[in-house]
Every structure is written in structure tokens, then in C-alpha cells.
């Protein structure tokens, strides 16, 4: 069974083979076809167009036919894009075909990417005609929109069909519009009706919109109508702007009628009314309309002579009666005050011409007030002014104002820079004036004066003084000052005016204000004149006030004198005379001077001497006061004045006593209370001391550099210490002195806490290090810190702070010096600034000066000059000498030469020879043979022949050459010297090599080929690889093998080398050629 089966398998296998061997049905696949078509297209044997999906081909003819079909189907018009979609062909192809059709076929045209047929055009024409009949007119624009075709195309289409299919007319002005006759007629009728119906001006635009007539049609029709005089009116404005108006005749007529009648009735014309009537430029209109009337053109209306006359009459009457008149009620109600004013000025102009003597004022634009009327108004003020004047004088305002004015006259230039304070003062004055007015009775004023401070009293007295001066020097100065004093302010005037019978009406407030403004200056003038009169009369009554001042001053002076006595005692505690003197001087300068000044100013007030109260009294002013002082006090005051310059407190005190005594100031000076003093001596001294150190410090600040304050304090402290009663108070002093001046405290704390910033502050204040150290030492005494440590701390911080820029380059510092020097800053200042920035040790003052001098003398460089160094011993002479020596004997040694020239050292010789003369010492070369001239000639000849032959025959000649040479080959060949060469460092050990390894035997090798310079060279190299041969045979086979192993080129190269070799030989005149 299996066998059968297997047979079957075998059979199947055979079948399979057969099946495989049977021929294949040849079939063209799709891609083959595509390939073939592509090939055909490439060969231009076929012309087809691909469809967009690439699956079909279409021939152009077919495409054209299809396009035509589609065109027909679509009623003669088809879009190319649509066509492309329908035919499934690329748009570009379609376009190409369509243009072709357009070109060839008269009936078809290509418009805006659409193919259009004649039938379609006919169809359109019919449609247009229908439309025209329906609507009456048709524009190309509408058609364009409707048919979506270009306007010029449609234009040609319509024009072509006009009269044939389309029954209508083309507009003359606009070729794009077509209409029918009936349409035009209808519109014309419409317009004519509308225009006839219009009663008032109407803009054409509204008219058109109401009638529903086209604008351009309207204008053509209206022109027509105008010509035929069928329109009752005119058209104004431009046609194109759309702002044109139609004004019916009937309207303009009624307008004129109205204007005429209004004017006739009222005598004026209001612009507003005119513009309401539709007149755009009323002034122009008025001028044109009434060319004969004399109209006054005012800002808001035009006035005729009627009204004008009326006002004139009213004003005339007012003037003649000396009263006032308001023109406003006479004018029509719509007149503005400005109009009234203009009319009035016009009227008054006429009056001036008639009667120039009359003085008339105009208020509130419309009021006319005569001079008489004004005087009448001013009458009630006389009494008020009188009262006011009294008031002012008694309150002292007048005086201070006068004094002020005088001062201002004196130093008006100086005063200019403090206007604000002046303003303040004036303000104050004004307040007082009003206050005074409110006060009423004399008693009230009295109390007020008392309560005011001494300064006012003083001011008052001085004012009295000034008045005296004023009288003597003529009232010139006072006038300017008094002018500034305001007697009556505007409000007051107004109040009075309101009570006036003439002005009792409600709406006169504005008028009153204006009148008040007008009257104000003149009233003030009269008021001040009155005040002056009053003032003079009241001068005498002020004496009693002085008594009060006197006692106050007495108390004050007493206190001060006591203080001086105390301080003087304190000063006596100082052991150092110098310090004592300084402090006494200071005391005189401060407290004593103050007392003196008080006394002097008191005297000055008493005797009404004018002086500058604002400033402290200078010695010069004191002298001035002294001159003016009464004789009985003069002497003692003079003494006091002089005593201030002597350095004696006692003297001053005595002088003060006499000056305050009877006859001068009449003041009682308290005797020093001995009991009290001794009781609390300790306390007093402490306080004294404290005060002392206080002014010692202020003293120090005044003479910052002149005196070392530490000494003062030191002295003071010692004084306190030594005084037995005050031992316990040192601590309290210390506490207080620590607190009273912040600077001092800073110093103290800096010495305690190493606070660098404090020291820094002091450095800025131009203290030097020693001063600081002194301070520290001084307080070290109190704080019990060791002196050396303090100095060390201060110095360290000092130098640390100092260097803002540490260790600068020398040239940099010099540049800075140069810079400062160029600004001509003193060297000492430069040094100071340098020390500030670069630290104290940067450069000495002397060096700074030296550099400054150099820069001033014109030095430019900030660098050190280049230094020459030791001059070279090598000069041209010596080089020449050595050169000659070498020329004489080239085999010299340096040793020999230096013995010739003992003045030149050996190293110098070496330098001259190698560097300057560029010699090298070289050994002579060894050559194997010394060639005689004969040999050379032979060699030259051989070379020449060889080269000649080579030149003639070229490489062929080389082929014919057979050379031969022989050499010894040893059983052992050592390395050649060159072969043993290797790179090494100068320090590495030198390898030694022994030549004396004599070979046992050697064999002559003869080679018919080459000279030794090529083959043997390489052979030797090969043999010297270190192999040692046992016997001749071995050597021979080895050498023979080597010969065989070389390539033919190797031997060729040897022959080739002959040519350059001979060439060299020729060039060296037959000399020996190595390598």
C-alpha cells in the first residue's frame, strides 16, 4: 500500500515539475500599461491628458468635446473650476482647452474663468430687457452683481443688444445707466410736484429720500426743469457734496418780510433770531439787507439808531442831574451786559466830543455814574475814616508800619530775599487791624497791649523814634510805608455803601463791589493822612507802659549778672593761666556781651534811638546808640562798652553795676548772697564746672584748630578733683559730660567699643590723629583705660579705615598727582587726599612736592625713566679686530685669542665670534681618496661622456649599462655608525659601542651591476643586522638570497642614480662625490 502511495507521491512530484515547467501566460499588468503609456508620452508618440485621480487618460479632442457638451448642458455658461470637477481633469488642462475654444470659436468667450456661449448672452439680453421694462432703469453695477460678470463685459453685451433686444436709452452722463423714457417722465413729474409743494428750505438729500428719486437723475431733471422755469425756487450749494439746499421763493420772501417788520418794530435785530430763520452769517446778512440804515453791530445783535438815541437821552439826563443811570432796563431784555457796555462807550464817545469836561464812570458794564454822584457816595466815609485813624494809631500798628517802611527804605535791597517773612508780618498786622476794630473801646486795647510781648513794646518805642526822624527828614520815607497800611478794606466800604439811600436796591451788590474797589485807594489815602494827624497827637500818652518793661528787664539782668559771677568763680579754679585767659575771653564774648546788649537796647528804647532790632547788637551799633544817648548815661555806658575788650570779668561786672545804677538805667542790682553761695559750694562748683565745660566745648567749636580743647577739659577735671568739696561729684560730672555733646560721647564710646565709624566721623571733621588721641587720653583719665592701648586702638582703626584703595601701583598714584597738579591744587592738599584714599603711608609729602614740581615743569610720563644699565663692552672696533684674527688663522682657539687680547674676557670672545660674526667651528671632512687634478680631469671627462650619452639616448642608454664592483663581506658586520644613532636627552647615559669585534673571515663579493654607493650600502645594512655566519657557504647563500630577493626596481634605481651622481661630479669639477 505504501509503495502505491509513494508511487502516487512520485507521480505527483512529476506533475508538480511539469506544472512548474509549463509556460506562463503572458499578461500585462496595470503598471505595465502605465509604464508603456508613460514611455509613449516620453517619446511624443501619444498625446493624452491624465484625469485628476490618474486612473484615466483623455485625449485633448475628447476633452474639448466634453467641455462643449457640458457647456450645452449648463445652458451656455459654466465655471471652469466646476468643469474641472465634473470632467475630473486638472484645472490647468481645462483652462488650456477653454482658451483654445475661446480663440477658435466666435460664439464662445471666456470671462472671469467662465466659459460663456452666445445663446447664454442672448438669454441675458432678454432678461435685462424684461428687468428694464419692470424697473424703468438698470445700471451695469446692478447687472454685475446679479450676473456676477465683469461690468465692461456686460457693458459691451448690453450696448450691442441696445435697440435690438433691449428697448431703452443710455444715460448721457453715465454710460453705465440705462433707462426707459417712461421712467424718466415719471420721475420728472414726481420732482416737480415735490418742489412745488415745499414751503421752507429743504436739503436735497431729504427731498430725494422722500420722493424716492435717484440723485443723479434728479440733477439732470432739475436742470431741465430750471430751464423751463417750472420750479418756484432756487438750489444753493454744490451738487456733488450733497449739502445743497432747495429754497423756495415763497420762503425767502416771507423771511425778508419778517426781518423788515421786526426791525421796524423793535429797532434792533438779534443774530440768534436770524440764525433761527436759517441765515448762516447774520452780520453779513444785516449789512447786506439794510445798506442804508446806520446799524451798530454788537456781539450778539445789531442795533438801530432808535435805541441808540434813547440811551443817549437817558445818559444826558443823568449827567445833567448829576445822578446815575442804568441802561440795562432801557434796552431790550435779550441784550447782554457786554452789548450795553459797547453801546455806552459809543454813546459816551459822542458825549466827550460834545462836553469834554464831564467826568463819567461806567460800572458793571451798564451803569453810568457821574462824578458828582461819586462824591456824594464818598461823603459818609469821612467820619469813619477819622475814627479808624484814631484806632490805628492807638493800637500801634501805624507806628510799626512806619518803622517797617523806613527799614525797607534803608535796606530794601537786602530785604528782598525774605519776602515771605514780610508777608507774614503784614498778615499779622491786618489781623490786628480787624481785631482792633472789633475791640471797640480804649480799655480793651490797653489790655491787649499788655499781653503782647516785650518785642511789641520795643517795636512801639522804636516806632516813636522813627517818627521823630520822619519829622526831621521830611515825610518822604513815611509815605511809601504808610501806603502799605490799609485803613479800610473793601468789605468795610461795601458795608457802608449798602446803607446809602441811592443803592438800596437788591441787585446792586455787584455795583457796590465795583464802587468799593474804585473808592478804596482814595479812601485809604485820606485815611492815612488822618491817621498821621491823630498819631502826632497821641504820641505823649505811652510813657506809663515803660515802667512795666523796666522791672522785667531788671529781673532778667539780675539773673544774668549772677551767672557771670558764678562763672567767674569757676574760672578762677583753673591753674593753667592760658586756659583761664581763653575762657575769660569766651565768657566776655558771650554772657557779658549779652548783658551789655540788653542794657544798650534798653537805653536806646528809653531815648528813642532808632536801631536794628532784628539783629544782635554789634559794637558799631552800640557806638551809634552811645552817640545818641543822653549825656548823663553816656559815660558809664562807654566804660561798659570798652570793658568788654579788656580781659577782666571783674571790670565788666563793675561797669555793669554802675551802668545799671541810678542815673542810667535806674535798676537795682542784688548784692551777691554770700551765705547762700558757701552753703552749697560743692553743688555750685559742679554746676559751674558743668557750665564751664559746656561753653568750653562750644568755645572749642568756634576756634576748632586754634586751641586744643582736651587741655581745657583736662584742666577742668583737675580743678574739680583737687577741690576737696567736690570729690564726690566727679562721677556726676562724668555722667553729664557724657551726655551733653553727642560728638564727645561718640569719641568716648569709640575708645571703649572700638567703634570705627565714630573715629571716621571725626576724621572727616579735620581732626588729626593726635587730637583724637588726646581726646581718648582725656577720657582715659576718667575711664581708666591705659593710654598706650588707646593710642594703639585708634591708630589701628585709623590706618584700617584709611586705605580706601589698598596698595596702588606707583604710576597710578603719580597719575593722580598729575591730575590734581593740573587743577593747580596745592601739593599739601594732594598729599592729604592721597592719604585719605590710599592710606597714610602711600607717599611722603616731599615726594608729592617733588612730583608736582616735575609735572609743572612739563614732565609727561608717570613712569620711571628707563635705566641704562652697564654699558656693553662689545663695540665695533673689537669685533673688527677679532674678525681680522679669524681671517688670518681660522684654526684659532678662544684660549689663543684671549691671550692676544688680555682686555677681552673669554666669554666675551665667544659671544663676539658666535653671535656677532656668526662663526661655527667645524672639523674638516674625511674623504676616502685624495683626488689629484689628473683624476679630476678624468672624472670630469667620464661624467661628461656619460651625460652626453644619456642625453642622446635617454633611458635606453641606461639599459645598456653594465657596471661591476666588489666588496668585502665579513662573517660579522658591526652596525654602521649612522645606524647606531638614536635620540636621547642630554642627561641620559651614552651608549658605548665596540668596533673591534673582528670578523673571523671575510669573502670578496663581486657584483657586476653597480657601484658600491647603492647596492653595497643596502647589502651592508642587511648584513649588519647582527647575524654571525659560521662558514663561507652560509654567508654566500645568504648574500645570494638577498640579491635575489631584491626587486628589479631596486637595481633600476641604482642605475637611475648614476645620472644625478655624474651631474654632481661635473658640477664639482670632478671632485669626490659623497652620498
Amino acid at each position, binding site marked *: 500500500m*505504501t509503495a502505491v*502511495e509513494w508511487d502516487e*507521491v512520485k507521480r*505527483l512530484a512529476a506533475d*508538480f*515539475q511539469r506544472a*512548474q515547467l509549463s509556460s*506562463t501566460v503572458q*499578461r500585462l*499588468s496595470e503598471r505595465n500599461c502605465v509604464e508603456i503609456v508613460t514611455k509613449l508620452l516620453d517619446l511624443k508618440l501619444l498625446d493624452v491628458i491624465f484625469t485628476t485621480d490618474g486612473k484615466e487618460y483623455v485625449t485633448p479632442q475628447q476633452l474639448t468635446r466634453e467641455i462643449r457638451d457640458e457647456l450645452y448642458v449648463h445652458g451656455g455658461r459654466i465655471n471652469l473650476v466646476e468643469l474641472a470637477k465634473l470632467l475630473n481633469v486638472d484645472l490647468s488642462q481645462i483652462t488650456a482647452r477653454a482658451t483654445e475654444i475661446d480663440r477658435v470659436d466666435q460664439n464662445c468667450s471666456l470671462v472671469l474663468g467662465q466659459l460663456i456661449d452666445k445663446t447664454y448672452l442672448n438669454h441675458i439680453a432678454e432678461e435685462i430687457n424684461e428687468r428694464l421694462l419692470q424697473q424703468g432703469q438698470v445700471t451695469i453695477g446692478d447687472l454685475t452683481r446679479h450676473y456676477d460678470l465683469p461690468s465692461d463685459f456686460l457693458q459691451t453685451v448690453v450696448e450691442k443688444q441696445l435697440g435690438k433686444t433691449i428697448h431703452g436709452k443710455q444715460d448721457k452722463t453715465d454710460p453705465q445707466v440705462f433707462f426707459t423714457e417712461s421712467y424718466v417722465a415719471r420721475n420728472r413729474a414726481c420732482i416737480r410736484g415735490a418742489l412745488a409743494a415745499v414751503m421752507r428750505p429743504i436739503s436735497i438729500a431729504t427731498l430725494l429720500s422722500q420722493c424716492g428719486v435717484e440723485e443723479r437723475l434728479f440733477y439732470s431733471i432739475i436742470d431741465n426743469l430750471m430751464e423751463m422755469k417750472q420750479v418756484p425756487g432756487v438750489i444753493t450749494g454744490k451738487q456733488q457734496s450733497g449739502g445743497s439746499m432747495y429754497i423756495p421763493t415763497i420762503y425767502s420772501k416771507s423771511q425778508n418780510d419778517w426781518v423788515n417788520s421786526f426791525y421796524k418794530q423793535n429797532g434792533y435785530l438779534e443774530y440768534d433770531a436770524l440764525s433761527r430763520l436759517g441765515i448762516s452769517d447774520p452780520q453779513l446778512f444785516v449789512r447786506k439787507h439794510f445798506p442804508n440804515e446806520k446799524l451798530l453791530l454788537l456781539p450778539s445783535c445789531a442795533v438801530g439808531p432808535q435805541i441808540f438815541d434813547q440811551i443817549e437821552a437817558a445818559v444826558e439826563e443823568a449827567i445833567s442831574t448829576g445822578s446815575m443811570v442804568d441802561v440795562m432796563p432801557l434796552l431790550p431784555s435779550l441784550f447782554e451786559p457786554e452789548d450795553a457796555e459797547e453801546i455806552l462807550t459809543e454813546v459816551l464817545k459822542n458825549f466827550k466830543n460834545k462836553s469834554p469836561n464831564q467826568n463819567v464812570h461806567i460800572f458793571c458794564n451798564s451803569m453810568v455814574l457821574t462824578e458828582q454822584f461819586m462824591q456824594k457816595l464818598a461823603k459818609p466815609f469821612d467820619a469813619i475814616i477819622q475814627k479808624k485813624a484814631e484806632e490805628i494809631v492807638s493800637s500801634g500798628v501805624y507806628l510799626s508800619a512806619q518803622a517797617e517802611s523806613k527799614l525797607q527804605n534803608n535796606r530794601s535791597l537786602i530785604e528782598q530775599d525774605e519776602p515771605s517773612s514780610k508777608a507774614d508780618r503784614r498778615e499779622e498786622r491786618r489781623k490786628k487791624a480787624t481785631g482792633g476794630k472789633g475791640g471797640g473801646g480804649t480799655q480793651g486795647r490797653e489790655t491787649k497791649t499788655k499781653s503782647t510781648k516785650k518785642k511789641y513794646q520795643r517795636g512801639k518805642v522804636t516806632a516813636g523814634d522813627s517818627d521823630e526822624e520822619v519829622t526831621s527828614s521830611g515825610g518822604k520815607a513815611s509815605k511809601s510805608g504808610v501806603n502799605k497800611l490799609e485803613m479800610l478794606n473793601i468789605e468795610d466800604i461795601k458795608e457802608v455803601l449798602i446803607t446809602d439811600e441811592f443803592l438800596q436796591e437788591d441787585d446792586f451788590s455787584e455795583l457796590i463791589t465795583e464802587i468799593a474797589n474804585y473808592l478804596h485807594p482814595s479812601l485809604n489815602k485820606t485815611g492815612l493822612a488822618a491817621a498821621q494827624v491823630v498819631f502826632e497827637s497821641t504820641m505823649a500818652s505811652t510813657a506809663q507802659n515803660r515802667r512795666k518793661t523796666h522791672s522785667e528787664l531788671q529781673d532778667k539782668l539780675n539773673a544774668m549778672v549772677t551767672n557771670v559771677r558764678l562763672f567767674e568763680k569757676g574760672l578762677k579754679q583753673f591753674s593753667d593761666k592760658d586756659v583761664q585767659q581763653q575762657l575769660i575771653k569766651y565768657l566776655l564774648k558771650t554772657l557779658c556781651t549779652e548783658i551789655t546788649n540788653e542794657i544798650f537796647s534798653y537805653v536806646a528804647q528809653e531815648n528813642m534811638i532808632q536801631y536794628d532790632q532784628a539783629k544782635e547788637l554789634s559794637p558799631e551799633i552800640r557806638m551809634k546808640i552811645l552817640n545818641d544817648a543822653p549825656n548823663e548815661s553816656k559815660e558809664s555806658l562807654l566804660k561798659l562798652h570798652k570793658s568788654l575788650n579788656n580781659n577782666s570779668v571783674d571790670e565788666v561786672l563793675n561797669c555793669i553795676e554802675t551802668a545799671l545804677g541810678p542815673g542810667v538805667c535806674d535798676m537795682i542790682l542784688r548784692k551777691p548772697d554770700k551765705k547762700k553761695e558757701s552753703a552749697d559750694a560743692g553743688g555750685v562748683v559742679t554746676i559751674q564746672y558743668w557750665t564751664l565745660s559746656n561753653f568750653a566745648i562750644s568755645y572749642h567749636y568756634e576756634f576748632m584748630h586754634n586751641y586744643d580743647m582736651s587741655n581745657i577739659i583736662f584742666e577742668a577735671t583737675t580743678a574739680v578733683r583737687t577741690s576737696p568739696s567736690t570729690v564726690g561729684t566727679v562721677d556726676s560730672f562724668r555722667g553729664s559730660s557724657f551726655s551733653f555733646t553727642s560728638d564727645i560721647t561718640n569719641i568716648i564710646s569709640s575708645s571703649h567699643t572700638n567703634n570705627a565709624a565714630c573715629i571716621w566721623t571725626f576724621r572727616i571733621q579735620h581732626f588729626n590723629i593726635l587730637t583724637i588721641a588726646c581726646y581718648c587720653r582725656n577720657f582715659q583719665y576718667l575711664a581708666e583705660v591705659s593710654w598706650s592701648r588707646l593710642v594703639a586702638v585708634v591708630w589701628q582703626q585709623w590706618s584700617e579705615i584709611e586705605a580706601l584703595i589698598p596698595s596702588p601701583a606707583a604710576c597710578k598714584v603719580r597719575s593722580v598727582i598729575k591730575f590734581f597738579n593740573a587743577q593747580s591744587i596745592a601739593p599739601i592738599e594732594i598729599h592729604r587726599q592721597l592719604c585719605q584714599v590710599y592710606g597714610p603711608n602711600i607717599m611722603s609729602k616731599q615726594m608729592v612736592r617733588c612730583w608736582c614740581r616735575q609735572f609743572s615743569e612739563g614732565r609727561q610720563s608717570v613712569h620711571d625713566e628707563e635705566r641704562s644699565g652697564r654699558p656693553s663692552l662689545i663695540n665695533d672696533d673689537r669685533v673688527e679686530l677679532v674678525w681680522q684674527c679669524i681671517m688670518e688663522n681660522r684654526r684659532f682657539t678662544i684660549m689663543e685669542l684671549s691671550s692676544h687680547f688680555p682686555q677681552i674676557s673669554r666669554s666675551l670672545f665667544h659671544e663676539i665670534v658666535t653671535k656677532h660674526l656668526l662663526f661655527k667651528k667645524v672639523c674638516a671632512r674625511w674623504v676616502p681618496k685624495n683626488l689629484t687634478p689628473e683624476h679630476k680631469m678624468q672624472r670630469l671627462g667620464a661624467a661628461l661622456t656619460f651625460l652626453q650619452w644619456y642625453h642622446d639616448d635617454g633611458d635606453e642608454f641606461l639599459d645598456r649599462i653594465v657596471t661591476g664592483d666588489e666588496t668585502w663581506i665579513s662573517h660579522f658586520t658591526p652596525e654602521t655608525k649612522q645606524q647606531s644613532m638614536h635620540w636621547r636627552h642630554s642627561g641620559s647615559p651614552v651608549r658605548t659601542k665596540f668596533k673591534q669585534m673582528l670578523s673571523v673571515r671575510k669573502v670578496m663579493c663581486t657584483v657586476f651591476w653597480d657601484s658600491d654607493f647603492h647596492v653595497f650600502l643596502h647589502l651592508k645594512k642587511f648584513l649588519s643586522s647582527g647575524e654571525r655566519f659560521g662558514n663561507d657557504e652560509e654567508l654566500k647563500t645568504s648574500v645570494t638570497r638577498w640579491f635575489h630577493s631584491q626587486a628589479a626596481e631596486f637595481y633600476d634605481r641604482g642605475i637611475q642614480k648614476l645620472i644625478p651622481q655624474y651631474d654632481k661630479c661635473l658640477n664639482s669639477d670632478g671632485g669626490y662625490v659623497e652620498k
Partner: protein
Amino acid sequence: MVDEATKKTLSNIPLLKTKAGPRDKDLWVQRLKEEYQSLIQYVQNNKSADNDWFRLESNKEGTRWFGKCWYIHNLLKYEFDVEFDLGPWLAVEIPDMIDKGAITYKEKTEGR
């Protein structure tokens, strides 16, 4: 997994009904016949579709198949030798094969 064209090709070839390998003796013959039939069918299909792409033949037992296949690309015919063996033999069958002389066994004389 299989694309549409392959599916279509497969549906035009008779399905193999016998599940057997060369060790199954009689069943294998059956299987081999079916293999041949379907191969013949496939080749014929190919030929008629102008898609001939191989020549194949097998040894007597149908365990080793060899032949050629080709592909034409850019007008150049690339030809490849094809050969596949149904194997390897399982260890249990080796003695049987040695009996048949299909393989020879040589004892290792040297140790490891």
C-alpha cells in the same frame, strides 16, 4: 495578520487535511500527496496569473525541499536558492535511522 491578497491566494488553494510529519509513516505519505496537490494548484494559479516566482523540488521522502525563487526589480531578475529541511530528527528516532543506514554512528574513542 494576513493581508487581503494573501487571503485570496490561500482560498484558491486546496486545504491540507492531514496533520502529520515525516515520522508518521503512512500519514506522512498522505500529507505529502496533499502538499503536492496544493503546490501544483498554486503553481498553476500563479502561471495563469503571470505570477510565477519559484521552482521547487523535493527528495524522495519529501523531507528536504530545494529550488530557486526570483524577483524582478527594475528590469533586473534577482534569483535566490531556496532550501529547507524538515528536521531536526527527534532523539528517539536516531537508532531507527542508524538501522536504516540513514546516518552512521561512530563511537568516540578519546575521552573527553
